[in-house]
């Protein structure tokens, strides 16, 4: 996924996959030698947040900007001042993981003046299998409410249609169709489609940037890789358990 802007904001509906995409994008940048700061600006989700794996990300050279210590575990809208410093640092690529819907996106609003001074990409992550972004009018509404809450203009969409573990390439395709329709009617480009890495090969024919991702924040019973009778899969699963789970 090639995004030119130094500041990349992932926003969108609640539960649309912003955090997974932000994590994968930050790791992708770090692997490519960039100096990355990941801002966990999620003030609405109590679980499955970027900050939950701050230590592992630090091990990959990624700075996680989030409430520290006890406050990381509090259901309080804490916003840390370090964000201003990161936005101003021309050496840094800043990935911002915004909370869901307009209430979550409100936290970004206070940085709108700082962001408008600079070039930024604000990408709306859309999963058409989620209850409130299933069609063009609801996607339009999501965009409108988030732009109003943030005082910023979205610059594009990221297609992220999935059904979790039951995602198939045809689900990805049908979601992309809906989003492309929304893209036409709203005049906002679809920058990329985020696709679970194991499905990426089946979708090579799509005329769109595919961003292969690996699901990082999982419930405990899925952290143990599924060991199948397939020997290759067994070896891959063992490798994954041994090494850092976030490395490719």
């Amino acid at each position, binding site marked *: 996924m090639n995004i030119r802007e130094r500041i990349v904001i992932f926003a969108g509906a609640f539960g649309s996959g912003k955090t997974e995409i932000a994590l994968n994008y930050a790791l992708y940048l770090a692997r490519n030698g960039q100096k990355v700061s990941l801002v966990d600006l999620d003030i609405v989700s*109590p*679980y499955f947040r970027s900050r939950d794996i701050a230590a592992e990300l630090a091990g990959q050279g990624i700075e996680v900007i989030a409430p520290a210590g006890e406050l990381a575990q509090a259901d309080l809208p804490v916003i840390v001042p370090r964000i201003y410093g990161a936005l101003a640092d021309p050496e840094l690529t800043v990935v911002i993981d915004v909370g869901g819907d307009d209430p979550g996106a409100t936290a970004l609003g206070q940085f709108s003046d700082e962001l408008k001074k600079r070039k930024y990409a604000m990408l709306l992550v859309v999963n058409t299998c989620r*209850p409130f972004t299933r069609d063009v009018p609801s996607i339009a509404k999501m965009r409108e409410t988030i732009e109003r809450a943030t005082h910023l203009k979205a610059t594009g969409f990221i297609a992220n249609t999935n059904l*979790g573990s039951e995602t198939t390439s045809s689900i990805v395709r049908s979601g992309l169709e809906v989003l492309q329709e929304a893209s036409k009617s709203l005049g906002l480009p679809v920058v990329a489609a985020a696709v679970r890495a194991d499905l990426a090969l089946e979708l090579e024919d799509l005329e769109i940037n595919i961003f292969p991702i690996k699901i990082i924040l999982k419930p405990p019973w899925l952290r*143990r890789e599924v060991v199948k009778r397939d020997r290759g899969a067994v070896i891959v699963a063992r490798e994954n358990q041994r090494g850092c789970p976030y490395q490719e």
Partner: protein
Amino acid sequence: MSEKLLMKGNEALGEAAVRAGCRLYFAYPITPQSELPEYLSRRMPEVGGVFLQAESEVAAINMVYGASGAGARVMTSSSSPGISLKQEGLSYIAGAELPCVVVNMARGGPGLGSIQPSQSDYLQATKGGGHGDYRLIVLAPASVQEVVDLTILAFDLADKYRNPVMIMGDGLLGQMMEPVTFPDEVKKELPPKPWATTGWTKDRPKNIITSLELQPERLEEHNRHLQAKYAQIVREEIRWDEYLTGDAEVVVVAYGTVARIARSAVDAAREKGIKAGLFRPITLWPYPYDALGRLADAAKNFLTVEMNCGQMVEDVRLAVDGRRPVYFYGRSGGMVPTPEEVLAEIEKLA
């Protein structure tokens, strides 16, 4: 809608309530169940229902009392500290025999505790919580799809027995996302409720809903009636699930999300040649004592795994009745046991 959606447990529970014909929801926000009021605040107006953020949990449960008394399908929800606040109301509702659904997406305790998941409200849910000889039917889903199925069942059981039904989840179940489907049609025909206070008419005697009974003879009679009803629920409504228990030497007992973790550990144990199985109560009250006790014929021992310091293990001991050793492994305070930890405990017993 037979089409699949990706939803959080909390959201799916809200949609399931709507599908079950619930049009009244009163609650006060608390992490980690706030997605449920958030979802219903959007959804209830769409279906002509009422979402009301009460001024407190105490107010919400008493609004439930009123709405249920008027014959409506009604729900409230909270997480552990908020459920404690609702206990007085629950006792009144059980005493007055009013159907309703109460959701607890539990978090670490005691006190304000943490916002991370926990199962430390098991005893409160299954052994009382409020005062008096009453019982809640307690359903413990382990997946987002089961949240949907059991929520719909909860409304039916509540109406069938004129009794409050609790959905006992935890923060993890509320927050995690899984694919779900919902039944196609909203049930519109609710069961008749001739006892409801729907306005006085001359063709029937006055309906009075109260939990007050000053005459001890009559209160004892009422208690006998309640106990007979609870006995019927015990006979007819026990639900559980078993996984690889047929030849199991180590039977792991766990409910809700912990059963998912335990199942993963059982799979890992089987790969190592250990005969492990999983017994998962779905109804925490009535508890599947007999079904679990039967496994003591073949099993060497039992391992109860909970996200608390040892609560359901008391019921496992009652079920096993001293015939086999019952061990316990738990994490608390919002810490979640891992499959590896559970596997290590199984290996000790194999």
